[in-house]
């Protein structure tokens, strides 16, 4: 963590600690302010598991209510945000298990971390897709569906670390796995995403379709 990031993190921790103390001594309305910076993370953590907007929103609401109810059990050795997100993850996992039982499906074993050698997409070149391309719904949907296609254990870690930009230690605490496991899953998740996305982004551009406007100034060949 950079010195600047550390200052921001310390500031958030002391803000949270102050608000928590006041909520616990009766100023319950302040819970709104306490969770406000983390409400997107709570939703995304639930979405990573449930893959459905309505279910993720329901789980996020329930997680926030549980956090209010159990705030007295929060221990300051972890960050409030990590604690809150871990409640959302547990809530989403419980709902997923329940949904599977309702559908009379066998409860799936979670995908195992495998050690198979992984080969990234074979591409000869890569040109930058500028961030303004995200104004295009097609690109957002392409990214979302590539992430949705990852097995759950990889999707969770990628959403928390690379979308929400939580650090490795917090991702590990929120998911209840070691930092080593987070790093291993992160490598797999990132390479899987690269394998799926790099050729798609490339081929779409090479045909002058979706990314046609990002042609090389030099007019060079694409892929």
């Amino acid at each position, binding site marked *: 963590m950079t010195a600047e990031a550390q200052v921001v993190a310390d500031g958030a921790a002391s803000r949270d600690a102050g608000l928590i103390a006041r909520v616990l001594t009766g100023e319950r309305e302040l819970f709104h302010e306490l969770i406000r910076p983390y409400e997107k993370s709570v939703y995304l953590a639930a979405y990573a598991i449930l893959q459905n907007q309505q279910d993720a929103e329901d789980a996020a609401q329930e997680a926030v209510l549980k956090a209010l109810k159990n705030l007295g059990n929060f221990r300051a050795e972890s960050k409030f945000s990590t604690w809150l997100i871990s409640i959302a993850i547990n809530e989403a996992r419980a709902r997923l298990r329940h949904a599977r039982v309702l559908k009379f499906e066998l409860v799936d074993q979670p995908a195992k971390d495998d050690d198979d050698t992984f080969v990234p997409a074979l591409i000869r070149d890569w040109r930058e897709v500028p961030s303004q391309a995200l104004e295009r719904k097609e690109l957002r949907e392409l990214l979302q569906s590539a992430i949705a296609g990852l097995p759950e254990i990889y999707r969770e870690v990628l959403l928390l670390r690379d979308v929400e930009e939580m650090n490795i230690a917090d991702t590990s605490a929120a998911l209840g796995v070691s930092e080593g496991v987070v790093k291993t899953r992160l490598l797999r998740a990132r390479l899987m*995403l690269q394998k799926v996305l790099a050729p798609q982004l490339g081929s779409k551009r090479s045909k002058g379709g979706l990314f046609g406007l990002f042609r090389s100034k030099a007019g060079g060949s694409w892929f």
Partner: protein
Amino acid sequence: MVLDCQHVWDQISNYIEGEVPEELRAAIDEHLAHCRHCAAVLDSTRNILYLIADDRTFELPAGYSARLHARLQQEIAAG
């Protein structure tokens, strides 16, 4: 230290995190300078991570925050 492509891919995530020891980083940099394919894999992975971290990639459902706080307020009011 001489690395083949597979070694580089195995370390690509730690490399992006800035979490490889100095000697290994130098070896990876040396490999990347001569291997267009690995350099493209690194660039594309970095670029994808940059795009998915953008707030526009995953937007909240419209009205999510208002509904969340309304529900929370009910709970707070109920004591």
